[in-house]
């Protein structure tokens, strides 16, 4: 292979640049930081097991939006609550987790994900 040395050096430079967020966090001593989420304003249980919710809420919301908008299927039977709730981000989710800023955003900011829910859906707090 030609230029073996050059290629290896180039790869190393690439790795250093690509791993920038990691060593930047290490250098700043920020590796242990975790987002702290505000407890729900009311109720003990989430509409599904909360660990499962943490991992799968995006799929749940995805399903909900299709079911509500496209199938006119607006009600969800929650086993954990043993009751029927409305499939609604703003009314049901934010109904308990009253502050989007202290709940949704904290984790999303930490993970640098930008869900576009809020491009359209209204955080009632924002317009009070």
């Amino acid at each position, binding site marked *: 292979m030609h230029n073996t040395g050059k290629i290896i050096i180039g790869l190393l430079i690439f790795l250093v640049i690509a791993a920038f967020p990691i060593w930047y966090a290490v250098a700043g001593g920020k590796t242990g930081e975790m987002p702290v989420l505000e407890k729900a304003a009311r109720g003990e249980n989430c*509409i*599904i097991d909360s660990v*499962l919710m943490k*991992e*799968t809420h995006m*799929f*749940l919301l995805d*399903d909900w*939006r299709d*079911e509500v*908008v*496209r*199938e*006119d*299927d*607006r*009600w*969800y*039977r*929650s*086993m954990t609550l043993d009751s*029927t709730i409305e499939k609604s981000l*703003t*009314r049901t989710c934010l109904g308990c987790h009253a502050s989007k800023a202290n709940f949704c955003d904290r984790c999303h900011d930490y993970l640098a994900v930008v869900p*576009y829910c809020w*491009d*359209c*859906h*209204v*955080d*009632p707090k924002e*317009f009070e």
Partner: protein
Amino acid sequence: MGIDRRGFMKVSGLTILGIAGGASIDGLASPQTPRKKAAEAGTRRYAMVVDLKKCHSQEGCRDCVQACHLYHNVPDFDNRKDEIKWIWKDSFHHAFHSMEHEHLEESITEGPALLLCNHCDNPPCTRVCPTKATWKREEDGIVMMDWHRCIGCRYCVVACPYGSRSFNWRDPRPHIKEVNPDFPTRTRGVVEKCTFCELRLAKGQKPACVEACKEGALIFGDLEDPESEVRKALQDRFSIRRKPELGTEPEVYYLV
């Protein structure tokens, strides 16, 4: 992994299957009665009847327009180019130009016509949509919009013969004076239009415009129900529709 979890969730969270309640006012489903069940009982065909004479009796009235636009967070751009409208007043000439003649009764031609999505039985807009972001709901005939899915190609705007569809040329949020938190806004780059207030219907309410009209110039209901107000209104008076020659079968009727 996501799919497995999702499947699990679907099993754990059963979707409620309510008891099919009898058709309530004009067949509107109550919140406890999923619409699907009601649809099995009989298909509905929602329609709007606009009484032009009653509408004209209140000159300059914009109650219905304001109620609709307030409820649905419709922005006010105040320029023709970016304008978004779900329901609006336009001249008889623009609304019915193929039906016009010089000597038509002035009380009809000089007043405005109230225009909105016709919720056609045979909608050209849904036919052209490349992503099924707009479709006709079979159980009640409402031409729906999915703002999550729309890619903003505007083919539906091009195909609509009535100018009923608006595109968000810019971010609408800064142009909404008063935000209704119970209804989403839209984002730039999607198409929007009247939905016959399908969310209000699901809650058992009448469309916002119908509720706002003090003159009773707007009548809304199910054409499949022979006892409905809309059927009676169409029985009693002569009515016209916009561009009937195109075969779109509009479900908005104008009493003249």
